[in-house]
């Protein structure tokens, strides 16, 4: 087996052409998971006997909520790597993931509200999971606005990395306290109906769409990293050559 020097790809210059090759693959994978996911979600999974057809929102609500948390952790991991190893590419990955993570958090809240209206009768309940998701959105907003406020890219990357790490330490504490708070005030809130026992087809749809979101996230993050690399290295020789070639 030929030995691959992985560290070669940690420099933006070496990674740039590789990104160009990776994006189409992940786009294809995202579509390849979405189509059967939607097929299972709408045509194979039977309607729920309690919730009727409205539970089909779950097939995107749950994956979006999973991705929103997963992306924050991955983002903090990249940010920490960028801080400790001082690698530019890791920091770029962290900042490339943040907008997509915030988008999935918003989508989880949005679909949750649309599911809650027919099920609970209100758009919003102060349920532990919904509240934690809202706080996660605030954390994403903090990360994005700190990054936007600092002009110098290196300082922006490092400062937001510290914030992401502080956030990731805090997320379990926040989740735990919100849960405690919610059980204490149980009387005031509407008891949340448990997720219905899932048929295998429902589970398949949910898993397929989770993978679809995952692949989509990778593709979009890579697109964003590519723009970021071009912006930050626009004065270097290799970017001039790469641009000349792609013209």
């Amino acid at each position, binding site marked *: 087996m030929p030995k691959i020097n992985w560290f070669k790809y940690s420099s933006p210059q070496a990674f740039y052409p590789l990104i160009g090759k990776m994006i189409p693959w992940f786009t294809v994978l995202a579509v390849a998971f979405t189509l059967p996911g939607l097929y299972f979600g709408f045509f194979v999974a039977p309607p729920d006997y309690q919730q009727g057809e409205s539970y089909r929102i779950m097939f995107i609500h749950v994956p979006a909520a999973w991705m929103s948390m997963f992306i924050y952790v991955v983002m903090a991991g990249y940010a920490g790597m960028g801080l400790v190893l001082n690698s530019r590419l890791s920091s770029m990955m962290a900042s490339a993931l943040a907008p997509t993570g915030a988008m999935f958090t918003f989508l989880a809240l949005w679909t949750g509200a649309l599911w809650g209206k027919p099920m609970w009768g209100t758009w919003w309940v102060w349920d532990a999971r919904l509240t934690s998701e809202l*706080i996660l959105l*605030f*954390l994403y*907003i*903090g990360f994005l*606005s*700190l990054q936007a*406020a*600092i002009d110098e890219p*290196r*300082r922006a990357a*490092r*400062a937001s990395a*510290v*914030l992401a*790490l*502080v*956030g990731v*330490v*805090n997320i379990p*504490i*926040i989740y*735990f*306290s*919100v849960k*405690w*708070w919610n059980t*204490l005030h149980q009387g005031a809130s509407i008891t949340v109906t448990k997720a219905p026992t899932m048929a295998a087809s429902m589970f398949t749809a949910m898993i397929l769409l989770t993978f679809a979101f995952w692949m989509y996230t990778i593709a979009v993050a890579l697109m964003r990293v590519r723009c970021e690399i071009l912006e930050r290295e626009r004065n270097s020789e290799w970017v001039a050559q790469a641009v000349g070639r792609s013209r």
Partner: protein
Amino acid sequence: MNRAGSVDFSLWGAFRCIVARDLTLAMRRRADVLTTLFFFVIVVSLFPLGIGPEMATLRIMAPGVVWVAALLASMLSLERMFSADYRDGTLEQMLLTPQPLPVLVLGKVFAHWLVSGLPLVLIAPLLGVQYDLPPEGLLILAVSLLVGTPVLSLIGAIGAGLTLGVRGGGVLVSLLVLPLYIPVLIFGAGGVDAAMSGLGAQAHLSLLGAFLLGALILAPWAAGAALRISME
């Protein structure tokens, strides 16, 4: 510093020196200290005007209102923690000293809390009386603020360090720090609630104490890292 000529270079000495210096500076600008305090008092007093004077409602809301006002007040004063030292170059000198930065940060945070957190703790029972809180509620309110406000200052130091010299830093710091304040708010206000309903606030206060210990250990390092990044 002990006497002229004999400077204490130990960690404790450095800590004490920073605290004494910051307190002296704060005493020279007493108006700043009072601003935070009055902000707290005014915000708490506005709620009855917005909600209505029924004492039963107000009593239920009191812990939450006082705690949210304390969060906002301590957040408003965060910008002062490092900005003056940043502007006159003292902070740069501090980063160059042989003493470890977290200790110096801890000193600054402690001084900041003495000036902006402790007054809130002392005046909170008086504001609780406005809301007709029973005596045990008043006691727990003060105790929970006593344990909780240092956590706010510690976490806030990270945000203040990160936004140092950034345009719009004052508003930005609230976006960064307020979500991280939520656990303190929940257990601080929850403790007062629990005490008033006769459940006992011990669990809440213990958890607040745990937050304080965790923040004491982690926050000075994170704030130190933030300061180094901002001063690069």
